[in-house]
């Protein structure tokens, strides 16, 4: 199947959906189902749009984007299914968002990437507009626009130097034309910052708090889970196949390291559960990008998968919990899980996986990350990661203990059976993958090679 359908179908349905509002939600579900089906049937390769080979726009399906597509589409689908009530009038937006997300993962063209970035960005603004904090969303919009503007600036500089927009051609062209790295520092930094805004990297992410701290389950899972994963994967592709960090790598590493540290420390200092989770999400995205920036693709993808699954569980349950109890102060949520054991179990498993304790998938990921970092002899970074994950573990354990054990009266909340089932399955998945990882690691093995293949062939068909 042609992967462009992954983008075309949601778009088509989006256009159709505004003609009659009644069909919007069913259309969304159908589109999601179709996409999930398609993801598992498309085959690898380079797909041209309009038949202009490497001079036009291409979609690239390799192991990397395939894994990304599977994860993102499935989680997107489940998010919508488990939050059917919240979807309401957002169906069209979600359809467009789905198209944008798939586009970001598939595209092999820098400018096309910008367009999809904007699509995803605008849908994100609209999705977050539901939390009744227009100022926060406005803030997000301004920052997002500046960010994508900077990305565009960097892109056009790059174009003027290389004369191409094809991601697979940039690197070969740089080599061919022998463009010195110092000349490339500015465009790459601009693009890095532009994407960094969306990827929640530290100095550029003041939007996150406002947007996520009041978000419901749907919004938070989409923004912190699906979109973040997509952006991270996009970022990862750029960092691994397009960017030549060269002289700016120090600045980039500092930014990423500070992001990680600041996220965890801020989460440590937070008293509200959603804030804790959102800061933790910031730190995680910092870590993911950090891995990509160091060329550690496989651990990064593993982390992305672990992250989206656990973030799905955490944010969904938190959203439902906050909905049900009308509060997100950890102090007043004490002991909520004693009445909702299944949900509590899923939440606990997800947190333990995020902390990186054995028997859970997060542990395998952490081990992988550290092994790779040490094989590069990155002593300082790995020490930082350990320190950071100590802080992370501390507040997560604190959170868990508070949520399981009460001192006073216990608030209750109701969770649909569907949410229970889905989160439970995800939690079990974390355990299963934590014990038996071979299929996943095997399928990841070929990712870096395949990523480089397109470049080696210069985007030819």
């Amino acid at each position, binding site marked *: 199947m*042609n992967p*462009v*359908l992954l983008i*075309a179908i949601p*778009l*088509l349905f*989006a*256009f*159709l*959906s*505004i*003609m009659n509002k009644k069909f919007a939600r069913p259309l969304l579900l159908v589109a999601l189902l179709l996409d999930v089906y398609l993801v598992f049937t498309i085959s690898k390769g380079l*797909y*041209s*749009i*309009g*038949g*202009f*080979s490497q*001079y*036009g*726009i291409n979609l690239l399906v390799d192991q990397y984007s395939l894994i990304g597509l599977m994860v993102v589409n499935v989680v997107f689908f489940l998010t919508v299914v488990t939050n059917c009530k919240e979807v309401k*009038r*957002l169906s*069209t*937006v979600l359809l*467009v968002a789905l*198209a*944008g997300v798939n*586009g970001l993962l598939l595209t092999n063209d820098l*400018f*096309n990437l910008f*367009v*999809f970035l*904007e*699509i995803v960005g*605008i*849908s994100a*603004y*609209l999705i977050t*507009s539901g939390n009744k904090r227009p100022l926060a969303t406005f803030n997000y919009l301004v920052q997002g626009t500046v960010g994508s503007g900077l990305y565009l600036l960097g892109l056009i*500089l790059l*174009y*003027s*130097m290389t*004369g*191409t*927009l*094809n991601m697979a051609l940039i690197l070969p062209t740089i080599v061919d*034309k022998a*463009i*010195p790295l110092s*000349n*490339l520092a*500015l465009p790459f930094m601009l693009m890095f910052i532009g994407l960094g805004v969306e990827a929640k990297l530290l100095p550029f992410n003041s939007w996150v708090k406002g947007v996520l701290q009041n978000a419901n389950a749907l919004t938070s899972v989409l923004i912190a889970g699906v979109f973040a994963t997509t952006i991270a994967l996009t970022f990862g592709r750029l960092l691994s196949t397009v960017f030549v960090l060269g002289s700016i790598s120090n600045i980039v590493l500092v930014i990423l390291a500070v992001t990680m540290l600041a996220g965890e420390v801020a989460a440590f200092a937070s008293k509200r559960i959603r804030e804790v989770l959102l800061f933790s999400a910031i730190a995680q995205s910092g870590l993911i990008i950090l891995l990509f920036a160091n060329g550690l693709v496989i651990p990064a993808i593993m982390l992305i998968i672990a992250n989206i699954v656990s973030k799905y569980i955490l944010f969904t349950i938190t959203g439902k919990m906050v909905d049900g109890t009308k509060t997100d102060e950890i102090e007043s949520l004490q002991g909520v899980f004693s009445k909702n054991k299944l949900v509590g179990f899923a939440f606990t498993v997800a947190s333990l996986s995020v902390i990186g304790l054995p028997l859970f998938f997060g542990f395998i990921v952490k081990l992988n990350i550290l092994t790779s970092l040490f094989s590069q002899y990155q002593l300082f970074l790995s020490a930082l990661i350990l320190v950071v994950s100590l802080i992370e573990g501390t507040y997560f354990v604190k959170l868990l203990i508070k949520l399981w054990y009460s001192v006073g009266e216990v608030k209750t909340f109701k969770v649909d059976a569907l949410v229970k089932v889905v989160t439970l399955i995800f939690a079990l998945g974390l355990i299963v993958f934590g014990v038996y990882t071979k299929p996943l690691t095997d399928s990841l093995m070929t990712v870096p090679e395949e990523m480089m293949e397109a470049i080696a062939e210069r985007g030819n068909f």
Partner: protein
Amino acid sequence: MKKVLSLLVVLALGFGIINSLNQNSSFPKFGEADVSDRVSDRYINKNVTEENEEVIFGEDGYETGSSNFVTSIVANYRSFDTLGEVTVLFISAFGVALLFSKDSKRVSLNFKPNFMLRVGSRALFGLIIMTGIYISVHGHLTPGGGFPGGTMIASSILLLYLSNDSFRTKIKGFKLLEGFMGSLYVLIGVAGIYVTGYFLENFLDTGVVGDLFSAGIIPIVYVIIGLKVGSEIASIIDNFLTEEVS
């Protein structure tokens, strides 16, 4: 103080960027861009898929038949971008509607349109909308195209809004038009897959360069874009004329 500091920082950055661009040997100086070195060279010579030395006005058989190279890029070589772009506009328009739909009421204009406005706008309406459609249709031949054309269409509708307050309540078809046109665009793209194997492939005959009926799907796409942009911008305007009830 804050302003001075900001100014200083911004100035530093601006001069820094200019300086670094100036020293950047790979970045072509203004007006010295070497087009032959860029991918655009292929677009100008229309030899992306076919061997082709040079495009000659009035001949046929090129991969795209548009004499306006920008249009050939917008609506053919990089048509996928344009689809995305239309989607951005679409989702913005939808978003504006979404933001205003709840608890909102329509506001009536706080002035009564006078005679000049009523008559003048009707007279101008026809002219402007004609121009808009013309520009959309001739997008592959002359400067302009679907986007400017669509905007003109929308501005003509704005005139109607101004001149006749009840007009807005009568017109309901924008959503339908918008959705329909968008779907059509996607469907044309999907049709490409089934006709030739590529999404958004120009599967019609490209015709003679310079003819009105040439360039395959380009004019069709541009007309679709024109109508879609027109209806979207019109609906944005429409929505801004409502007010939230608090």
